[in-house]
């Protein structure tokens, strides 16, 4: 995982609440056995493409303004549903680095953090402003846990200390767990 310190990007807005993981990556794409390549065709497939596979021009990601955006602003409870890590894999593969909402589902949040995709949960007033102003340029500072709006206002968001450490340093949690091997072995002996 690459270190993630600051994100500066225009936003793409998908205002719907409860965007579930079946929308982010429909199940028919889950027979893959790799992590890569989900951005091109699987991400939001049934919203991006019609039944014939042609891009739907009214879908936000198919509009020119969305090109190059790395921040997705979404309605409440983004990523609800299944545990498929294919959802953050696809978002990262497409180019996203952060998802901003008022609520992000637990498993999606955990999966996102392990792939360098920052879950940003902010207050409803700031979120409503972002929903109403699609395409604004914002800056997200991982270390300060702060999102800066273009008018100079800034909004704090929660980020668990260890998750922040891993993002800032590009550290993989598995390395940390493997260093606990002696304590794991001791636990196993005492609970045998």
């Amino acid at each position: 995982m690459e270190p993630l310190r600051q994100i500066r990007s225009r936003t793409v807005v998908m205002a719907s609440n409860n965007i579930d993981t079946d929308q982010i990556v429909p199940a028919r794409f889950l027979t893959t056995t790799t992590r890569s390549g989900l951005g091109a065709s699987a991400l939001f497939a049934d919203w991006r493409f019609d039944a014939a596979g042609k891009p739907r021009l009214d879908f936000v990601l198919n509009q020119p303004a969305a090109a190059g955006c790395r921040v997705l602003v979404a309605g409440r409870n983004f990523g609800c549903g299944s545990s498929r890590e294919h959802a953050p894999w696809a978002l990262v593969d497409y180019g996203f680095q952060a998802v901003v909402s008022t609520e992000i589902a637990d498993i999606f949040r955990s999966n996102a953090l392990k792939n360098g995709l920052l879950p940003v949960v902010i207050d409803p007033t700031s979120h409503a402003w972002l929903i109403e102003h699609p395409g604004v340029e914002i800056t997200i500072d991982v270390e300060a846990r702060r999102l800066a709006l273009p008018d100079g206002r800034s909004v704090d968001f929660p980020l668990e200390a260890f998750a922040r450490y891993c993002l800032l340093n590009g550290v993989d949690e598995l390395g940390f767990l493997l260093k606990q091997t002696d304590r794991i072995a001791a636990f196993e002996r005492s609970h045998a």
Partner: protein
Amino acid sequence: MLDKIWRDHEVVPESQDTPAVLYIDLHLTHEVTTPQAFAALRSGGLKVRRTDRTIGTLDHSSPTDPAQAFGRVPIAIESAGRQMAEFERNCREFGVELLDMKHADRGIVHVIGPELGLTQPGNTIVCGDSHTSTHGAFGALAFGIGTTEVGHVLATQCLLQRKPRPVAVNISGRLPPGVGAKDLILAIIGKIGVGGGTGCVFEYRGEGVRALSMEERMTVCNMSIEAGARAGMVAPDDATFSYLADRPRSPQGDAWDKALARWRKLPSDAGAAFDREIDIDASTLEPMITYGTNPGMVLPLSGRIPAHGDTAFRKAIDYMGFAPGDAIKGKPVDVVFIGSCTNGRLSDLRSAARVLKGRRVASGVRMLVVPGSQGVKRLAESEGLDRIFTAAGAEWREPGCSMCIGMNGDTVARGKYSVSTSNRNFEGRQGAGARTLLASPATAAAAAVNGRISDPRELV
């Protein structure tokens, strides 16, 4: 109860800077969410730490058509076949026990865990599948994880976790006759919404849950995730212990007595603190059915679709082809699916069979009945349930997730209506453009008989 199980599994307690290192007793694995985790182990030169605490099954992308399931013809979806073969190779290479396609115990991961006695009170259980919450019915802490975490558990038998917040769901009263566990959990999700449990573990308490059988408790815990709660739990009691007694992988002899003594201490102490309490009276409930594109958009069968709502509501209603104010009863049905980790156990099949016995599936309706495991299939066949289904014109299949997720080719066509006993009515869940209405096995069977949404209490 959450606190007790958590404390018992802390290899390293959590601190301000780091999450807890939590020990995992049982790791259930399947073909869809593991290939990238095994690849990570391979590239890191790592082994599976505890093959004795890891078990694999094929369920999500596996065919339910007997000819494909038993290798008489090739698997129609090539990528699914490749994924299954890769899982078989990974299990062989890393020494993980696999219940393969020909194994007499194979089935949906959340059906076989309890059935084999692997799921036990007080255990921590994980799987790369959000419906792992099912196992909480036994007083276990069970939750779904992503593929990176699957790799962590394979390599270290541990996870880095912050403790979730305990929430009490108090169920007073008993369900009226003709109203089941699926109706209860749909009513709970309708009450608190699909994000109502984010960050929480539900503990279902009260007379309403005590009166449920173990299979019914599993249905309730299974759909905790549809309210956003990563896990749902029920304190173990005599129903739990008698379910587990003499299961093939339950503790036996002295070990059973010791386990029982431990399990009896698990229930939350009187006065245990909860972050929040949610109250629901089971005695007032009716059969429930969803009308929209998430499980929180739910109505009693006698209800009407709300007249107003926000943009997402209107989008959902448009997708479903319904109009605000419509009665849900009487809506036409194209497909009926009985099965899944929510409602694919023996009692679910019995409940559907009671409605179907001596009747026919309405003309133009396709009905698929998919038992949750080979064990469920054998028991159902020994009672003659399969003959009731096939005589009615339904298809009786090999076990798997099937039409719940539609990865194996069992799908619903664009624009068609499916009454399904599964857990998710998201857009396209059962196939691109498919329209899903979630309901109990009895309600689904009634829809099959009448070709329309119907009240099963009028048929039994």
